[in-house]
């Protein structure tokens, strides 16, 4: 009986974790939307891997919107959560591409300066 009681407790915990009885929050909807905008502003559409995750985020947003419209708040919340992490990843991938480009440019400048004759002007 002890094991059965413990299993019942786990089941209750799982229900709580699933958001039973909770409703869709404003943050759950607005945060992924904000991240998607941030990804677009970071240039995610120009970076293939970032563009892929941006699309996934948008797809999940659309799924969330549909579920929310059908009053499936819990499922909608999860869809929005997935949209949020995909959009976050898209933002970071876009920033990484930009930063790596700048970093390479800085290294190229060092190499050019190192190999230039002493009197040559710095570029």
């Amino acid at each position, binding site marked *: 009986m002890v094991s059965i009681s413990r*299993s019942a407790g*786990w089941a209750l915990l799982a229900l709580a974790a699933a958001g039973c009885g909770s409703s869709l929050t404003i943050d759950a909807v607005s945060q992924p939307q904000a991240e998607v905008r941030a990804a677009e502003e970071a240039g995610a559409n120009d970076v293939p891997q970032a563009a892929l995750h941006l699309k996934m985020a948008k797809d999940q947003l659309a799924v969330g919107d549909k579920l929310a419209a059908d009053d499936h708040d819990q499922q909608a919340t*999860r869809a929005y*959560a997935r949209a949020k*992490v995909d959009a976050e*990843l898209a933002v970071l991938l876009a*920033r*990484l591409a930009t930063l790596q480009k700048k970093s390479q440019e800085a*290294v190229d400048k*060092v190499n050019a300066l190192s190999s230039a004759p002493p009197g040559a002007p710095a570029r």
Partner: protein
Amino acid sequence: MSNLGRLKAFAAHPLVLAALVTTGCGPSSPSTELKNARDAYSTTQRSKAQQLVPDKVLEAKQALDKAEKAHGEDPQSEFEKHFAYLAERRAQIAGVQGDLSDAEKKKIAAEERYVTLLDERRRKAEGAAAGMTGDLARERAARLAAESRLAAALKSLEEIAKVKEEARGMVITLSGAVLFASDKYELLPIAKNALDQVATALQSTDDRQKIVVEGYTDSVGDDAYNQKLSENRANSVREYIVSKGVAASRISSIGRGEASPVSDNTSPEGRANNRRVEIIVSPKGR
């Protein structure tokens, strides 16, 4: 009821089923999402993120733990897949943040290296320019000082010698009467005073300018004798000038005898003019 029947009845009890499922004793193979999440986390753990952004890796670990827990509670469930999806992204996010941190460090290091290189080159260029400027300035100052000393020395020579510029160089002509007694080649005491001023003037000339001391006589007497006398007189002047500090390697002497008279040898005045020592300072660059 047989043992098997009792077992089936027990297993069919809803609470037992729930226990089996929630404790992970049911179908336990992970979902594709969970496998992906585990792989992603493993990759991130081996990446630079572990050292550069450990807090983000910890977040990924916590997300994966949540997915594992969901898997343990309800394998292959929507929850497991959902949390595994989030965990995979958290692991990827941690990995990218590690890459971002690494790229930022490299960029900063390259920029600092660039600034350092530029500073080094500027210091070298400034040092070279300063050295060049200093050398030029010193050379110019030295040249001006030498020219000034030479001008002053030549000015003082005007009282005892004739100085004029010719094609062969600057010619300082000293009267033989000032330098030597008749028929002698030893310098008179008064000649030494005059030659001191000449030596001062010569020291003010460029070290690269050659100096030739030429001795001349009048036409009175034997040619060979006059030749020898002129050689000895030129050499006397040379040795004295050298003794005053003019480099011996710069200065040579030669006897011209009766050659190249500057005046008529028929008059005492003319002959006096012909008895002379000429000191020729070659033009610069020769």
